């Protein structure tokens, strides 16, 4: 059994991914849009957010901007783990971040002196009765 097959099931197709911007939950994509271990970029207003789903089905949302390159690419990184920490590796220069609090595990600061931390949004799975529904903010 692989994760991909379950996620393709008819019930799973209705499962949504939601992230919280401090005021309310926003529905950003379906769970089935995410390949386990990988992510996708979503727009929340003008903000770019990278959402992920790990092999166990937990979802995460962090800023899409890689602080080291300034490029909006974190959604194209690889999930993994370092000891007990769930991680995300940037595809640009391979810096590894803690998915739970967004902190970079390799360096404290980006080259421009700003702290090497990704903003983290609370994320959850929600079952909805409605079908595809993308939401602007």
């Amino acid at each position, binding site marked *: 059994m*692989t*994760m*991909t097959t379950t996620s393709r099931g008819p019930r799973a*197709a209705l499962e949504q991914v939601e992230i919280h911007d401090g005021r309310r939950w926003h529905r*950003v*994509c379906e769970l*089935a*849009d995410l*390949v*386990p*271990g*990988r992510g*996708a*970029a*979503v*727009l929340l207003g*003008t903000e*770019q957010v990278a*959402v992920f789903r*790990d*092999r166990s089905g937990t979802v995460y949302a962090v800023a899409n*901007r890689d602080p080291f*390159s*300034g*490029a*909006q*690419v974190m959604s*194209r*990184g*690889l*999930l*993994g*783990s*370092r*000891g007990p920490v*769930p*991680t995300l*590796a940037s*595809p*640009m220069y*391979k810096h*590894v971040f803690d998915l739970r609090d967004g902190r970079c595990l390799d360096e404290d600061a980006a080259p*421009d002196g700003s702290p090497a931390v990704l903003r983290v949004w609370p994320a959850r799975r929600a079952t909805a009765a409605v079908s*595809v529904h*993308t*939401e*602007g903010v």
Partner: protein
Amino acid sequence: MTRPTAPPAPRHTGRRHVVLIGHGMVGQRFLETLVALPGAAGLRITVLAEEPRPAYDRVHLTSWFSGTSADELKLCPPGFVAEHGIDLRLGDPATAIDRAARTVTTASGAAFGYDTLVLATGSYPFVPPVPGTDAAGCHVYRTLDDVAAIRADASGARVGAVVGGGLLGLEAAGALRAMGLETHVVEFAPRLMALQVDEGGGDLLRRKVEDLGVRVHTGVGTRAVLADDAGRVRAMALSDGGELAADLVVFSAGVRPRDQLARECGLPVGQRGGIVVDGECRTRDPRVHAIGECALTSDGRVHGLVAPGYAMAETAARAVAGGEPAPFTGADTSTELKLLGVDVASFGDAHGATEGARDVLYSDGRSGVYRKLVIGGDGALLGGVLVGDTGSYGVLRPLAAAGRPLDTAPGQLVLPAGLAPASGPVELPDDAVVCSCHNVTTGRIRAAVADDGCTSVPEVKKCTKAGTGCGSCVKVLGTVVDGELASRGVSVDDRLCEHFAHTRAELYDIVRVKGVATFSRLVEEHGTGEGCDVCKPVVASILASLAGGHILDGEQAALQDTNDHFLANLQRNGSYSVVPRVPGGEITPEGLITIGEIARDFGLYTKITGGQRIDMFGAAVDQLPAIWRRLVDAGFESGHAYGKALRTVKSCVGQAWCRYGVQDSAALAIELELRYRGLRSPHKLKSAVSGCARECAEAQGKDFGVIATSSGWNLYVGGNGGMAPRHADLLAQDLDHDTLVRIIDRFLMFYIRTADRLERTSTWLERIEGGLGHVRAVVVDDSLGICADLEELMARHVGAYEDEWAATLADPDRLRRFTSFVNAPGTPDPAVTFVTERGQIRPARAGEHGTPLPRPVLIGGDRVEVRTA
């Protein structure tokens, strides 16, 4: 040192003035060492150079014939002279030294006062004093100008004769042979390389050299050079009364120290030449030093190799800048080289000249291996000669230098790698010099690990300088460092990452033997955790090369790094570049126009790559499918220019067009590229095919390179350009087409099976036990009996290849990921913006106001339609 009392005219600053005569290999090393010493801060430095260009690597001069450019041979880093305020006067040789006035005069008439003078004038080639040597077509072999003149002359010549069968003579013969000349070597001594090898080795060497089509005449001298009416050489008259027709002659019958300047100003020189110096490299005049090939050192010898020259450079630099003294006491004359593709090494007392010395010999005329060790009366290793198989030279040389009775039976040591019993590595004593360039002993290396806390070879290199000269000792260095780490209980960590306690090669075997097909199963059964960006792509690559299937299928999709995930090359602003496959670099005018049109329509930046391709930059994720669609429709596929896979097979035009081509290199390159495209490997693979020995495709700088010969193809492996350039090794020669392809199949699959993650073929060849000899035994002679297996794997790869881009276009499921925002398909990434520069786009930098590219053509339909499919 005392300050000068009455400075002569040209000395206008108060700083002490060091004048160096000669900017060759040793001169440059002297400068580098000097400026790095604290005592050099206040010095003014002037360099007088005869040659029109700064110092270059004379040792590798011959590689110029096979395509290494003068630029690549440069030894003097750009900016070095300016950075250290050195006044370098090129093309203006010193003509006289006035020691009383302390001035040097040059050919242009300039005069320089000095406080310290350093002579590094090297040697001149010896030309036997026989009539006719000034005829047109006669050459020497010492400088870049010399080799350029030889090449210019060779194009009109048919038969070349080399006078001298030593190291240089054989190199010159190899170069003439490669330029297509019928080549003869005339050697006065009874055998080739008389200085380095003994009779048995010489015989074998001769046979190997003759096998390569070079005619060898030993025991004969040159009586005269005979010229035709136009004054061009037509033949050589030999001492045995014979005549040898030749229209090009190269003299490489030894060198003589350039000591004339010193002689003329009254400094003592040796009977057979060489400026006499003491242990500090000082001449009789304490203000004058001599280093390198022009010096006669305190051990009574003139050293004609670069390593002792470098040692002298360091000694003199310390003497000049007042550093800790490092007397020069003599040097190792060991050599390891590859002549005309034959491995030759000699070290220590190679001729058994020591009283009571005995030989231990291994000789196999059939496979062309000759190995001799010289053992002293006390059982110590004194020296040796290795021809055809120089394996374990790296260990034998320091063992001989240490001169202590052996622990291992010499009968074992003398055997070639394949035959030696696997009794574990030979222990080197602490005082054995491992790196003779920097005089670093085994003990010093062990101390670097034990006391200085080094835990890896790069750290030890930095700490001790071992391995940073000629590089020939790096392999032994690695063994010593690993041994010491292991003995200190530091396990030598070759785990892939925290998730797998295996090397890449071990994982490959697990996947192969157990038939594991998914990462999940592999990590559950053999690893821990979730994996990471190290092990996931490695496993993806192993699965791809063993199991096949589209790399974006099922779980494999989650393992690929971003380039493989999006089948294109990520650039700094998050956009991608696309490099259409152009097999062999051959493209029709229509093809060029198509690529041009695509780039124009999508507004992409284009650049010609080093791999004979056209790279199109600036594509956003959601534009990639549309670009591929256009390519596929025009009969192209995109290429793996981003992957750990076969990148490109370059070629020259070859026989079809080129006046010199002897085989159809373009056709072979196309065939090889189509055969190996899509092959996933531990690191990228590059290849090239050249249609003749001129090597325009630079095949010897590739992971596997093929060069045409008049009777087939020569296969080179392990070459590399880039950051760590390495010349490829000849794996097999004069192969017919089918054998060539078969050996490449095996070589690639063997590499994929055994290499570490991110290990290029060059480092793999250096690391793998037994080196090139072992790889040759496995893939040419099938010593492990796995060749059928390797061929079968390759056949599967070739059979299963599909155009990954076309397959992606055909599959809505895979296409779904090519969208910037999953909740706003069709919205471009507003962060990917460009400005215009030189008529094309480039990514906008921070603070620049850029604009996004024109909107892509949407394909694949909207999300809902895709989902319901």
